[in-house]
């Protein structure tokens, strides 16, 4: 068995496989299918300062090798998280990471500050890229200035590992990555969903309640991989790669493109045990290629 451990800032992962926010609940929903402690990190649902009901139904549409969602950050707010969810997940022996969202810098910072107090949460992932909420969300993620402002605000309030999740719905993702690096992020993760749409031609109206939603799954993998490659070349901080990863082969593509770790989202819906299979598959690949550590293949892309 190869050494699968990687570091993201001060965060130590036993393997580079994490779960993507919004697709793995609080981990507990998958406890029947996988040993949660075999996963490098679990990034839980998007959490906001105040509770949110999310968008009306329908929130989901299937697309060719992908899906659209417009959940819209439904969650019971950070207080509920700290009081009710945290006690249930704090003893899971892997990195439990909270995905934090907001609609203004203050909200983001206050939410992060609250989570900073939770001993067993070693990192947050700042979601500045959600396409499914009217205010804030993606707005921060699409300009270097917006991204920088929110990261600076959170950085003051949060002293553990700060991962910033980038939007793919931009002209130049490397610029935005550099701006959040300068603003103090410990790592970036990408991609969040691509903004898309589906139409019901019989009813002649959008399938989703708010017309548009975020595209995820294998369909977006080529775009995600390109962006991870561009960002890994542009910044010095670690990059976490995601978008359409279905198996170990996909995961290794992201590692080779320069990602220090990866996240698995939509694939959990197709195979609830996919995470541990990917970790095992990476190990097999390393063995086959005579690598002692997964770190040997991170960014190891020839011409």
């Amino acid at each position, binding site marked *: 068995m190869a050494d699968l451990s990687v570091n993201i800032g001060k965060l130590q992962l036993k393997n580079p496989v994490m779960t993507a926010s919004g697709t793995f*609940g609080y981990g507990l*929903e998958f406890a029947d*299918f996988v040993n949660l402690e075999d996963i490098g990190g679990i990034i839980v649902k998007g959490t906001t300062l105040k509770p949110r*009901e999310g968008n009306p139904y329908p*929130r*989901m549409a299937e697309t060719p090798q*992908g899906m659209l969602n417009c959940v819209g950050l439904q969650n019971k707010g950070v207080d509920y998280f700290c009081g*009710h969810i945290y006690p249930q997940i704090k003893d899971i022996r892997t990195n439990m990471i909270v995905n934090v969202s907001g609609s203004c810098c203050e909200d983001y910072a206050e939410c992060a500050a609250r989570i900073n107090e939770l001993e067993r949460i070693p990192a947050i992932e700042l979601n500045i890229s959600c396409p499914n909420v009217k205010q804030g969300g993606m707005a921060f993620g699409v300009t270097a200035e917006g991204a920088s402002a929110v990261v600076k605000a959170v950085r003051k309030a949060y002293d553990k590992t700060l991962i910033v999740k980038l939007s793919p719905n931009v002209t130049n993702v490397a610029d935005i990555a550099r701006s959040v690096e300068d603003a103090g992020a410990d790592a970036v993760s990408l991609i969040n969903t691509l903004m898309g749409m589906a139409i019901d031609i019989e009813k002649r109206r959008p399938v989703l309640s708010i017309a548009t939603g975020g595209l995820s799954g294998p369909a977006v993998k080529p775009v995600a991989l390109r962006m991870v490659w561009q960002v890994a070349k542009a910044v010095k901080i670690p990059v976490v790669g995601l978008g359409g990863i279905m198996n170990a082969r996909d995961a290794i593509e992201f590692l080779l493109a320069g990602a220090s770790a990866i996240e698995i989202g939509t694939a959990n819906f197709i195979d609830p045990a996919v995470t541990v299979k990917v970790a095992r598959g990476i190990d097999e690949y390393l063995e086959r290629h005579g690598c002692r550590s997964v770190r040997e293949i991170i960014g190891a892309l020839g011409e």
Partner: protein
Amino acid sequence: MQEFDIPFGIYLFYKMKKYILDLTLTANEHLRAGYALLKLTHEQPLPEMCPGQFAELKVEGSETTFLRRPISINYVDEEKNEVWFLIHEIGDGTRNLGAMEVGDKLNVVMPLGKGFTMPSSGDEKVLLVGGGVGTAPLLFLGKEMVKLGCRPTFLLGGRSAGDLMQLDMFRALGDVYITTEDASEGEKGFVTQHSVLQREHFDRIATCGPKPMMVAVARYARSKGIPCEVSLENMMACGVGACLCCVENTTEGHLCVCKEGPVFNTNRLLWQI
């Protein structure tokens, strides 16, 4: 650790463990055009399942089907170690399922969701109302009720006689009343127009079928003050309460049909009943 402190009002249904299983098809019966009854088994004893729960089926060989498909548990044959799914072939996913052949493997995640409330005593008079493929979960439900000593009453509706499936099995479990829109079997009309509703009193109603039917049943139940549970459909992605795609508007806010349901007491729903 795996216990949930009711976040979002979600709770585990009997704390039943969920499995990912590769089942093997033992029979595919085409009950009528466009409907397939799949019978599947496993080398291990099948897990415990409750009526109203469902499974997420992985569709193989369909280029256009990406996500799993939620299908109710139609019946469990403990002796043969079989689980049955009744499939209405309405799109590429269900058509591929309906085309399965004996010996084929089917990957399922199950049992999922929260099923019907079971009667607290054998004396309860229970009415089970189904329409179309919505009759599927009622067969298993009826069977489990019989085990508890109940004799359920089934009220099944269809457009015409040919629409009604598995009638023999229903009849073996309890009284069966039928409505058809063309009067080709039973009374003419919709299920809520059936005379048995005037004649008899029920302590509890469970229903599954097209939404207009379920709304009408719920309205009847409310008018009589009878507790009523409905099994809802919804577009699902994860099936385990993780993605929050499949919400229904309830008195407690948005609840996931896959985890808090698919069976809901109509009191919790914000339907215009």
